[in-house]
């Protein structure tokens, strides 16, 4: 058995992707539950898909590269330390934050304002935390997620910036793609991408999947 795995080792992949799908499914379930209780609305979740993408493919999966996107970058600490980048559509987030503030009898002004930024950090934190805890539970390792750093900008800029420390070694990334929808509202779906950014801990995960 190999000592280290890389996402570039193609022949290991199908089995690992199946296992990671399992983890992603639990994570997305956690995220949908948390979101539903936060917004006090029914949330439907679709089965997540797991991909290995090049940078350019990640950008394309998120739609147009100039789409204004909300990104949250979290540091995960613990034995599977890593970074998670969560990308959400600007329009969706704006609507959610407006709803959220309204439920607290606060006025929504702009996603760039103080109150909105703080609500946004909380929302992103909840979502990244949902995935991190699923990952931790699956591998029976406690993982802690830092409050995410938030940036609202062109998707390509966010993705390349977050990925940059990995790109010395690899040209590909692990991406979990999920979509959810709030049931009682329009059919509008929230797609989100979660990108796993640390190939060292990814190699650890792959090793554990194999064991």
């Amino acid at each position, binding site marked *: 058995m190999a000592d280290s795995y890389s996402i570039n080792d193609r022949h290991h992949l199908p089995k690992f992707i199946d296992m990671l799908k399992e983890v992603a499914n639990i994570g997305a379930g956690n995220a949908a539950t948390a979101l539903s209780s936060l917004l006090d609305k029914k949330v439907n979740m679709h089965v997540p898909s797991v991909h290995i993408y090049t940078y350019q493919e990640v950008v394309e999966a998120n739609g147009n590269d100039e789409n204004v996107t909300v990104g949250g970058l979290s540091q995960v600490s613990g034995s599977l330390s890593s970074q998670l980048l969560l990308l959400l559509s600007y329009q969706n987030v704006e609507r959610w934050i407006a709803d959220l503030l309204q439920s607290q009898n606060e006025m929504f002004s702009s996603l760039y304002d103080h109150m909105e930024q703080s609500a946004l950090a909380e929302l992103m934190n909840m979502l990244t935390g949902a995935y991190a805890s699923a990952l931790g539970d699956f591998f029976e390792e406690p993982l802690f997620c830092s409050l995410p750093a938030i940036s609202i900008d062109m*998707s390509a*800029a966010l993705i*390349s910036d977050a990925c940059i420390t990995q790109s010395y070694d690899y040209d590909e990334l692990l991406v979990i793609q999920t979509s959810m929808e709030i049931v009682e509202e329009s059919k509008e779906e929230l797609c989100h991408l979660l990108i796993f950014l640390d190939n060292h801990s990814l190699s650890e995960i792959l090793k554990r999947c194999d064991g």
Partner: protein
Amino acid sequence: MNTSEVVKVGIADCHIVQAPQLIRTSGLGSCVGVVLYDQKKKIAGLVHIMLPDSSLAKSKVFNPAKFADSGIKHLYDELIKSGAHRISIMAKYAGGAHMFKFSSGQDVIRIGERNIATTERILKNLQVEVTGKDVGGHCGRTIEFNPENGKMMVKTVNQGVTYI
């Protein structure tokens, strides 16, 4: 209005165009988009680099367009092969921002600043005059260069469009 063909350059990618074509790259974060052009011949090349230094690449075989040092030299050589005159080559570049600020102050290495510094150094070594730049800050940029007039459009989400 303007129906010129626009050639798109992806992340860690490099292309050369001839007027009336335009050349564009989208969503530069800490990456830097470097344009080298020959105004008389009306040709221009653009490289979208991600990292400063190719000596840090783990594998021997790497994509030169990914790094500032190898990418700019590669573009320079290709531009000359396409007919540019060494002495007329000039440069414009943009990018090198810092997108995510952690409240703990525990920032990821400031790659953007290092990309800018390496870009400056390589252009100086090649004795290429820099005629315009828009770097640093905290916003993503899209750039589009027109070899016909040597103007570079810089677009950001919050500040709109400027020309340098």
